[in-house]
């Protein structure tokens, strides 16, 4: 089964890279760009009996390793195939 974890900074945590992108875009003449935010996606394949089992497993992966709950939130999507 294929799964996809989307990880982003919690609101309130300043993302210096997003700010830098915004600034760099402005310097390059792309004016009027606002609200830049970044999300990291990790896709993986796993063996699981069904979607729910897969989702539970990927949630555990996210909580134990993939995301840092102090600064990040995550969401999981399972794409059967």
């Amino acid at each position, binding site marked *: 089964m294929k799964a996809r974890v989307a990880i982003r900074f919690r609101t309130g945590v300043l993302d210096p890279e997003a700010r830098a992108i915004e600034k760099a875009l402005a310097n390059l003449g792309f004016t009027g760009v606002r609200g830049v935010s970044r999300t990291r996606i990790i896709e993986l394949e796993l063996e699981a009996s069904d979607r729910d089992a897969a989702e539970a497993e990927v949630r555990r992966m996210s909580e134990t390793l993939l995301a840092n709950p*102090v600064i990040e939130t995550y969401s999981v999507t399972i794409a059967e195939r």
Partner: protein
Amino acid sequence: MRAAVVTFPGSNCDRDLRVAMERVFARPVASLWHAETELPPLDLIGIPGGFSYGDYLRCGAIAARSPIMAEIARLARRGVAVLGICNGFQILTEAGLLPGALVRNLRLSFVCRPVRVTVVTASSPFTNAYRPGRELLLPVAHHDGNYVLEAEELARLEEEDRIAFRYLDNPNGSTADIAGVLGPGRNVLGMMPHPERACDPLHGGEDGIALFRSLLATLT
């Protein structure tokens, strides 16, 4: 004083830390390979700087979840002193032994330079040989030293006097200029500046020596 320094794949300040400790402690310091899970009796564990596991995913994230860290966490709860420097600090926050997290420097680039920091609290086994308020010159060398934590956590750190060091010229954007913090039991210290690179008049000055002297005096 029974001290050891952990080596993870990708650690690169392990030797430097051991050399500095041995110089001040005047006795051998053990090396711990990350795969070891049964640790000898210890008074102090050093987690060195570097790029453990390439700092892939997040700095310190993979090392923080390695088996040896579970053991170190257990020892830390029992009062063993744990000193995490640079990547070691990142590992300790990722392992939940210290609050907050370390993210990319505000200016985004790696920064290597001596910075001025002040000793905020002298009440810890790491800092009791310093006078509070003393200004130190310590090298930093990191890409992800921007310490972030929530307002309540910050208030708690301040209330419990757990901020060990503050930058005078904040090189990375850290919240409240924090350069080093203590764990709730005051026996765990994480700091971005490198005291082990400041124990030698020929290299980086000598302002880091008192940190190791504090440990020597307290732990033996």
